[in-house]
């Protein structure tokens, strides 16, 4: 299958969007661990998920929930983009997945919003993509 027979734009946009979602989730994690807890943050990390979040001063797991939503969405958008490359004929399914999880990622900062928007555009491109028909030799 040639490059033209893959939804390249959708793949690239979704990969960048998914990567940004994971990056923003990682940044949120760093912020939680080091900015909010300047002292002995590693110790708290060892305390586990609920223990760590109990130190936030906001409802348990609120920030980690946002972080995890961003992380899971990013992973699924990247999986969608990779599957789109491997199986472009299933562009409707993987485009839907990219679109759904890019939208959900808004809950978890959505790759600084830009990632979510790129994912949504990538998903839309994947849905609307049509494979080019191979022209037979000698055909006008």
């Amino acid at each position: 299958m040639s490059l033209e027979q893959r939804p390249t734009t959708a793949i690239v946009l979704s990969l960048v969007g998914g990567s940004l979602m994971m990056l923003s989730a990682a940044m949120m994690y760093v912020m939680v661990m080091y900015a909010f807890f300047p002292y002995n943050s590693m110790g708290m990390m060892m305390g586990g998920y609920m223990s760590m979040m109990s130190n936030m001063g906001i409802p348990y797991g609120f920030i980690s929930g946002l972080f995890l939503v961003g992380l899971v969405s990013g992973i699924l958008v990247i999986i969608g983009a990779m599957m789109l490359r491997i199986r472009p004929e299933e562009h409707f399914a993987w485009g839907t997945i990219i679109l759904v999880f890019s939208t959900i990622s808004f809950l978890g900062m959505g790759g600084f919003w830009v990632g979510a928007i790129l994912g949504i555009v990538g998903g839309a491109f994947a849905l609307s993509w049509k494979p080019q028909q191979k022209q037979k030799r000698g055909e006008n």
Partner: protein
Amino acid sequence: MTAGQKFPIYAALVLVVGLITIAAVVAFSFAPFFSTTRSVKSIEQAKNLAEQYLSRLNQDFRVKEIMEFSNHFYVMVQEKSTGINAFELLVDRSTGAVFYEPGPSMMWNTKYGHMKWRNNSTVSMPISAQNASEYAQKWLEQNGIAAKVEEAEIFYGYYTMDVSRDTRIFGMLSVNGFSGVVWYHSWHGEFVQMVEYL
């Protein structure tokens, strides 16, 4: 559904599993049903929570003082070995969450806060406690707050002092021991009561 709109079983599985995962994360994170939050009603409860928190950090800490405010409980933590005030914590009333006080304790503390990179964990500061009190009093006057600063508590890198009006505490502020900058603790709410443990 056309040939281009195939939705294979494994894609459907990815979609369903992803949605369930996110729904579970949201449920665990936001829904009170899943959380182990507990409301804190007394200073003793706040002290127990603060001590549990401190025991996870270091055995050299003890609770020196707790002040109950309408928004949360304020906890002053002291180093057992040196008797120096270490840092300040807050205990959330509705969740029981114990956390490092955002503000001077986090930003100015030269031993336990962001300023620890200076490697200058000393309480000998260019600005004395006396000067800090004068700066604080001047700040109150400049901001039209008819109140008086109480005795300065020395922390690593800064001072914290109560602010009283008609002998009743009504607020708190901190003064940076290096720059003299005053930071009013505007987040506490109304003072209720306090207990000192030393």
